[in-house]
């Protein structure tokens, strides 16, 4: 397998509803990434689109709808999709296009327009369940995640305020992000604890918002990358893993599928001790407790230790192990697949020293990004190195 480098990235504003069509959003992100890399459409060998259910944009086969905005007309093109895991899985698919040798330069575009699903995209989530066992009770994702969060808190005896700290940290980190939807430099733990209860223990400010947005990433074989950049950032490892759809029969306190995906990625990257070797991480944080569970799934700490590290300030941008320096989904927004912008593009921006106000001050050399999806079962992981 060939080594794969990242040579450019782009990201649109993330907002509850943007006027641009999905293809217009794709164009804006793609154009930014191309300008960052200094390449043109003719230089692209292949294009990979990541976008979550068609039900969000309301266009069946939306991969085909989006492609002209993704510089894919008359190119080899494929759309990949595994729910919330897509934002990291799409660049993994881009990686295998280049690592295998079938492409020298591959563009990865991720798009989501959740605002089209009106009045609220939660209605689309109601149809991902088993039609006989789950759907007749009219459950929704927040109720299910509330049970998972409750289980996590019970097993480790975690206080709600230690989870709320994650929302506070990420919304404050997002203040430095030019695309951010919900940055808040004054938010406090009390604000989170006093927000409306949606399904105990989940409160309004524990949850990231639905969003419109797009992001793009340009991958290149390492040898060719030197034509465009002096010291290319490389993809050192990738991993993905999915747990049983019988979620009712699993203990949800620990995401073992994330651990499996992380082990696969670490093995490829030659990482024996992730706690020591990884400088920062972008775990998936659609809910504040998920950042903590995912830090544990990524083997960055012991089970139940993530809330303690957060309380001690270790996960702050200037801490020993910065977590979600981008501002994450909680602060920047959650256009499902397009969160590649926080989970993968951010690794590139941090490692290349291009993160601006969000730059981690300690000169990071290696970072890990992760996404999570389907019915509490999909883990996708990427490791990048300078």
């Amino acid at each position, binding site marked *: 397998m060939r080594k794969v480098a990242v040579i450019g990235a782009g990201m649109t504003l993330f907002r509850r509803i943007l006027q*641009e*069509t999905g293809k*217009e959003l794709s164009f804006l992100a793609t*154009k930014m990434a191309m300008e960052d890399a200094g390449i043109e459409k003719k230089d692209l060998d292949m294009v990979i689109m990541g976008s979550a259910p068609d039900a969000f944009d309301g266009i069946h086969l939306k991969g085909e709808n989006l492609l002209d905005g993704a510089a894919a007309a008359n190119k080899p093109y494929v759309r990949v999709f595994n729910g919330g895991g897509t934002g990291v899985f799409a660049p993994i698919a881009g990686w295998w296009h280049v690592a295998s040798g079938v492409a020298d330069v591959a563009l990865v575009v991720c798009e989501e327009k959740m*605002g*089209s699903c009106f009045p609220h995209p939660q209605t689309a989530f109601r149809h991902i369940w088993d039609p006989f066992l789950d*759907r007749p009770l009219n459950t929704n994702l927040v109720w299910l995640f509330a049970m998972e969060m409750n289980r996590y808190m019970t097993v480790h005896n975690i206080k709600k305020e230690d989870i709320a700290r994650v929302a506070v940290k990420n919304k404050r980190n997002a203040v430095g992000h030019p695309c951010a939807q919900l940055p808040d430099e004054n938010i406090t733990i009390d604000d989170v604890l006093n927000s409306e209860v949606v399904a105990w223990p989940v409160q309004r400010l524990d949850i990231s918002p639905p969003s419109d947005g797009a992001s793009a990433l340009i991958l290149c074989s390492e040898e060719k990358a030197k034509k465009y950049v002096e010291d290319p950032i490389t993809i050192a490892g990738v991993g993905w893993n999915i747990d049983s759809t019988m979620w009712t029969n699993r203990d949800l306190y620990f995401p073992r599928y994330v651990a499996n995906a992380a082990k696969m990625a670490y093995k490829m990257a030659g990482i024996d001790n992730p706690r020591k070797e990884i400088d920062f991480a972008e775990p998936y944080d659609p809910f504040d407790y998920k950042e903590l569970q995912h830090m544990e799934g990524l083997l960055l700490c012991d089970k139940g230790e993530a809330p303690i590290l957060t309380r001690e300030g270790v996960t702050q941008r200037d801490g020993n192990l910065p977590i979600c320096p981008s501002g994450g989904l909680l602060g920047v927004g959650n256009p499902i697949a397009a969160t590649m912008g926080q989970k993968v593009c951010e690794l590139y921006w941090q490692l290349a020293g291009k993160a601006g106000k969000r730059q981690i001050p300690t000169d990071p050399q290696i970072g890990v990004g992760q996404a999570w999806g389907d019915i509490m079962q999909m883990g996708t992981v990427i490791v990048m190195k300078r």
Partner: protein
Amino acid sequence: MTFLEKQTDPTSPMHWRGNMQADYLYLSGVAGDKFFKHLMKNDTFLATKCPECNKVFFPPRLYCEDCFCEIPEEKWFEVPSKGSIKLFTIATIDSYGKKLKEPKVIGLINIDQTDGSLLGVIKTDKPDEELQGVHVEAVLKPKDKREGTLKDILYFKKK
């Protein structure tokens, strides 16, 4: 395997009835907004021209899909709401398998002065004639009835 081909009542096995709720608010986008706002007040269309390859996009686009460049403001221009029939068919059965009261002519109209086409209903006295290449013009709703959607174009007819 249980084969059901001899079942006359598919609801006789255990089942649960559901639907996939899906309600949408589709925004026309940045280029679409401009196109439809113009159509509400004018009897002409808008198109855009790529500054690099000169391809004329109709309906107008913000970008050229080939050169992958943005199309600037000054490359927007008016074109007549007329064109030539590029493709057509005469439909007699609808999506539900029902016979239409009258055959419906549906075609792609290549809009004059552009490289783009629009799907439209073609009104003609003789639906079985050879229509390919025939020049047609759009018949629009009265201006005070327009809503800024494709439905503002009632149909295309021979000039």
